[in-house]
C-alpha cells in the first residue's frame, strides 16, 4: 500500500512539469488575480475534494465564511470579460474541464457569475 502510494506520488510529481509546459494546455483566464486559497499545485489536483468537504460543512453544519467557499472561487476566478467561470475555453472552470473531459453539475444550481456584479445587476 505504502509502495503504491509512493509510486503514485512519483507519478503525480512527474506529471507537474509536463502539464505546466504543455503547449496545448488550456489558457485560462484566472480572473481577479491575487493568491489562490491554497497552493495552486494542490488546487489543481484537489479542488474537488476541498469543495465537497466545504459543501457538507456549510450545508449541513452551517459553517460560513470559509475561504474554501464555492461562491468565493467564482468571485475570484470569474473572467473579467463575462464575469463568469463558464462560457468558453478561456473561462476558468469550463476551460479546464473541457480540456480534461470533466463534466460538473454544480452550476446548474450555483451561480457561475461574480456575486458583486450579479447583485448589482438586479
Amino acid at each position: 500500500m505504502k509502495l503504491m502510494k509512493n509510486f503514485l506520488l512519483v507519478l503525480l510529481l512527474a506529471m507537474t512539469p509536463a502539464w505546466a509546459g504543455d503547449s496545448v494546455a488550456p489558457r485560462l483566464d484566472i480572473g481577479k488575480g491575487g493568491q489562490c486559497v491554497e497552493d495552486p499545485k494542490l488546487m489543481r489536483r484537489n479542488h474537488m475534494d476541498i469543495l465537497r468537504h466545504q459543501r457538507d460543512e456549510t450545508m449541513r453544519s452551517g459553517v460560513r465564511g470559509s475561504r474554501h467557499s464555492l461562491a468565493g472561487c467564482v468571485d475570484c476566478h470569474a473572467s473579467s470579460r463575462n464575469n463568469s467561470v463558464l462560457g468558453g475555453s478561456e473561462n476558468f472552470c469550463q476551460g479546464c474541464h473541457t480540456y480534461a473531459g470533466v463534466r460538473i453539475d454544480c452550476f446548474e444550481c450555483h451561480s457561475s457569475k461574480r456575486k458583486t456584479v450579479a447583485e448589482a445587476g438586479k
Partner: protein
Amino acid sequence: MSAINPERRKFLGKTSAVFAGLVIAPGVLLYDFAHGRAAGEAASGRVRWGMLVDTGQCASDCNDCVSACNKENGLSGGTSATDSQWIRKVELKDLRSGRTTSLPVMCQHCEHPPCADVCPTGASFRRADGIVLVDKHRCIGCRYCMMACPYKARSFVHEPLTDQNPDVPRGKGTVESCTLCVHRVDRGEQPACVEACAKAGRRAILFGDIADPESEISKRIRAVASAQIRADLMLNPGIRYEGM
C-alpha cells in the same frame, strides 16, 4: 384546541427548566443575534429559530412577504402547480361568524419533521438550530417529502433555471422550501419576509430564537395566546400563529 396537548406541557416544562438555568448564571449572553455567527462556527443546538405570526396584523390584500421571498430566493412568482412557492397566503373563513383571517404559510420548521423521516437519502434534515432544509446535493427528486409534509410547504423544480441568486442555489430535479433565509440568518439578518412585512408597516412576523427565554419572540409567546397549525400532529413546529 380544547384537548390537552402533551407536547405543549413538555414545552412549558422545558422552558421553565431553561429559565431556572438562566437565573443561576445571570447576565451570560449565549448568543449575540445582531452579528450572526463568527466565520467557521457551526450552527448551535442551543438556538432554535422560529417565527410568531400575528394574524391580526396580516392583511388579506397584502402580499409583500411573498414578493420579498420570491425576490430574495429567485422564485418566478408563478402560482401554478409546477411553480415553486415557498410562502403561500392562506385565507381562513369561519362560516358561522363570517370572520376571515389571512396568514402566510411556509415550511413550519418542525422539531420532528416528517419530510426528514421519509427522506431516503438524508437530504431532508433539520439543522442544529432548528432550520429544516433540503441538502440539494443529496436530493434525488423522489418527492416523498412533499407527500409527507402536512403543510404542503414544499415545491419541486421542474424546469432548468438560469441566473440564480448567488446566495440561493436552485436547480431542476430537486425539492425545495422555505429555508428561513438561512443565508441571511447566518449573517445575523432577518428573513426577507419579516423585513418586508415590517417595511409595509405591519410587523406581523416576529423572528427570533425561541430557545432563548429572554428573546423578544419567547417573551411574546409567553405573554399572548398563540397556536401551531395542526398541533395535534405533535411535530412541534417552530412557526406559531397569534389570533388564529
